[in-house]
């Protein structure tokens, strides 16, 4: 019965595997995880990456099972990740940017030392010498370090567009050219340090921006990677573990308890329960017998089932629905990021100002050289150093805090969209609730028998019952056995007792008594009540939208004090409702976990899925809730609001600085010293303002 991988081909070859261990938080965890893995004879090397909450293991193991078991014994929940779906661990672009930052930074420092000497009064031949040394450092450094800006500006220009990088490249290159000319004629002012510090500050902004984007991208990849595409193929000479992609229609596939069904198919062997909640929102398990149709994405609960595949790969109902979601996602209104909005106003403004400065001075004085100097000063001073840092610095600080809260942002603009939310739509099953037994009505005798029976089984209902009876001593039972798909039987004081499927749900049968209903009652996920209360306090309308039957939905809505709820909504209803809200101009936050929510998640202004959600739902959402606690969501909304205010403040700071410096530069009074001082202070102010987000509260 057990699934055995081919021992010859897999076990001998050394291989590397990445596991996701979301609970790692501290130094002790690193030692614990690495220690537990290295204690296994088949593991050669284990290295934790605490930032990514992953561990990379290499050795001669056949699959992840022993590794996950070893970590589980230490109390760390681990999941295997599909490495092909992971972003390459070497971030070539980020390291390239860091190299350029290094070159620009050290170049700037050296040039600045020389510039300080010039500003403090070096003259004649000394000044010329210093200018030439500066040029020798600055010209190669700028040409190398600022290449991302030229490349981007050229791409934009060849598409006949103007982006932020056009004024940046123009300013850097004009400043450099002008300064070389000044040095060669023995002029007074050279802008080498300005060209370099401009490059440095903008590169830092570019790098921060890159980091947020990469974090978002690799989060998305990591989540896809959690869905490991393997299945157990039943063949005449035994079972074989194969990639799901290799399955064909008609193959017999074994699915063990706790695993997700990889294909659409029909049960041919085994009797057991299926959890369909992710696909339909139904809260109670469905009974499966030979002949029952099952769909990919359902979870097998208690007994192993053998299926005959009727649809595989891209043809499964799961994939078809996921594609429908992708279509809905593509149709989502394009959100224009704040930084792009600013750039659209800013870039033409800078160009026209420089042009006005040049022509104005040329008309007034007829001096090309003088006019060009004014234009360069204008370009440098208005160059969006602070503006280039305004958004990324805040994004990095805010998404870092979100991650600490347990919310992983997958989309680069999710933060800005979270800040605009004015209504919330919640799914029920799996999002607001988890199925847990409620057993206050059992007398001590019944409770102790129930616990004794429940402990003998690994069925989620049994586990829920056992968990609901923490202070009870288990009764002594004999000849306890689990009847697959039916329950647990045993003998207590010589008479038969049973816990399992009954007329109304799960029943406890005691000798000489009526069966007692012990069906699991849905309980709220931690933080669900806080989420609703916080939203209502903030004046956000909350709607409960579920695919489950009316009765449980109504009960839950009453328990949460929610006046708005809708039950028995199928995926189309959900999608339609979200579209309608969007048409009314509502910016809805949707929280859901099932495939039945995926369309709605994609159609919402911004969406969050719990980490337990089906991959299609996670893929459709902008953020993933890593822990189980929903009270993080109002905190995240609050944080997003703060971040938005901080970004706007930063824009304000940059605008104020420009309002002061532009007239000075226009008047031809700007000196390299002033530019250096103003540029640094405004950038530092903007970054400090962003960091405030991190330390507050």
């Amino acid at each position, binding site marked *: 019965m057990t699934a055995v991988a081919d021992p010859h081909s897999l076990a001998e070859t050394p291989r590397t595997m990445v596991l996701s261990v979301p609970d790692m938080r501290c130094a002790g965890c690193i030692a614990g995880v690495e220690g537990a893995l290295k204690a296994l004879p088949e593991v050669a090397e284990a290295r934790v990456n*605490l930032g*990514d909450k992953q561990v990379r293991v290499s050795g001669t193991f056949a699959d992840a099972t022993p590794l996950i078991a070893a970590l589980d014994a230490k109390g760390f929940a681990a999941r295997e990740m599909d490495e092909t779906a992971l972003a390459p661990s070497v971030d070539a672009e980020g390291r390239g940017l860091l*190299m350029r930052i290094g070159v620009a*930074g*050290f170049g700037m420092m*050296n040039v600045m030392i020389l510039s300080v000497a010039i500003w403090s009064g070096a003259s004649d031949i000394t000044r010329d010498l210093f200018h030439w040394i500066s040029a020798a450092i600055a010209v190669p450094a700028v040409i190398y370090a600022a290449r991302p800006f030229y490349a981007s500006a050229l791409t934009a220009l060849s598409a006949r567009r103007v982006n932020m990088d056009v004024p940046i490249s123009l300013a850097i290159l004009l400043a450099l050219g002008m300064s070389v000319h000044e040095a060669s004629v023995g002029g007074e002012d050279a802008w080498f340090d300005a060209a370099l510090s401009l490059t440095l500050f903008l590169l830092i902004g570019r790098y921060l921006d890159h980091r947020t984007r990469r974090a978002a991208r690799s989060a998305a990849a990591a989540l896809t990677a959690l869905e490991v595409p393997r299945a157990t193929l039943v063949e005449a000479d035994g079972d074989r573990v194969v990639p799901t992609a290799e399955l064909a229609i008609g193959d017999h596939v074994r699915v063990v308890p706790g695993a997700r069904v990889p294909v659409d198919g029909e049960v041919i062997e085994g009797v057991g329960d299926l959890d369909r909640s992710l696909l339909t929102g139904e809260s109670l398990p469905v009974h499966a017998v030979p002949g029952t149709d099952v769909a990919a994405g359902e979870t097998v609960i208690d007994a192993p089932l053998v299926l005959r595949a009727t649809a595989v790969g891209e043809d499964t109902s799961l994939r078809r629905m996921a594609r429908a979601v992708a279509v809905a996602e593509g149709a989502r209104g394009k959100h224009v990021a704040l930084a792009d909005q600013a750039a659209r106003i800013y870039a033409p403004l800078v160009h026209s100002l420089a042009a006005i400065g040049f022509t104005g001075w040329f008309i007034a004085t007829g001096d090309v050289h003088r006019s060009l100097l004014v234009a360069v000063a204008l370009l440098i001073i208005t160059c969006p150093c602070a503006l280039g840092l305004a958004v990324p610095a805040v994004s990095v600080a805010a998404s870092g805090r979100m991650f600490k809260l347990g919310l992983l942002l997958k989309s680069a603009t999710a933060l800005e969209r979270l800040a605009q939310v004015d209504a919330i739509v919640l799914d029920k099953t799996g999002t607001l609730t988890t199925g847990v037994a409620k057993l206050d009505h059992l007398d001590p005798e019944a409770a102790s028998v129930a616990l004794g029976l429940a402990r003998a089984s690994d069925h989620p209902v049994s586990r829920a019952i056992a968990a609901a009876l923490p202070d009870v001593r288990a009764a002594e039972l004999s000849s306890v056995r689990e009847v697959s798909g039916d329950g647990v039987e045993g003998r207590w004081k010589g008479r038969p007792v049973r816990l399992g499927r009954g007329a109304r749900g799960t029943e406890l049968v005691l000798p000489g008594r009526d069966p007692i209903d012990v069906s699991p009652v849905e309980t709220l996920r931690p933080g669900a009540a806080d989420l609703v209360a916080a939203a209502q306090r903030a004046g956000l309308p909350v709607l409960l939208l579920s695919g489950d039957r009316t009765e449980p939905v109504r009960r839950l809505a009453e328990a949460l004090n929610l006046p708005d709820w809708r039950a028995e909504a199928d995926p189309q209803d959900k999608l339609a409702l979200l579209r309608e809200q969007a048409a009314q101009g509502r910016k809805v936050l949707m929280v859901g976990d099932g495939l039945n929510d995926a369309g709605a998640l994609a159609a919402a202004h911004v969406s969050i899925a719990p980490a337990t959600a089906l991959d299609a739902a996670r893929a459709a959402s902008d953020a993933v809730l890593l822990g189980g606690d929903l009270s993080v969501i109002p905190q995240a909304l609050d944080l997003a609001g703060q971040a938005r205010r901080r970004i706007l403040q930063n824009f304000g700071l940059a605008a104020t600085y420009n309002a002061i410096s532009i007239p000075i530069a226009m008047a031809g009074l700007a000196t390299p010293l002033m530019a250096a001082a103003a540029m640094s202070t405004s950038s530092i102010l903007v970054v400090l303002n962003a960091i405030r987000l991190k330390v507050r509260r």
Partner: protein
Amino acid sequence: MNVLVFLIPVSLVLGGLGMVACLWTLRSRQYDDLEGDAARVLLDREPEES
């Protein structure tokens, strides 16, 4: 002012050294897991690197 003949090359060499050191830290991948490296300081013994 003759002292500049020494000081300027000295400052350039020092600056160059700093840059080379910075590039070396980058190439040896010391920025891959900042949070983890910060925590590893607290461990009693660092597991042997291969």
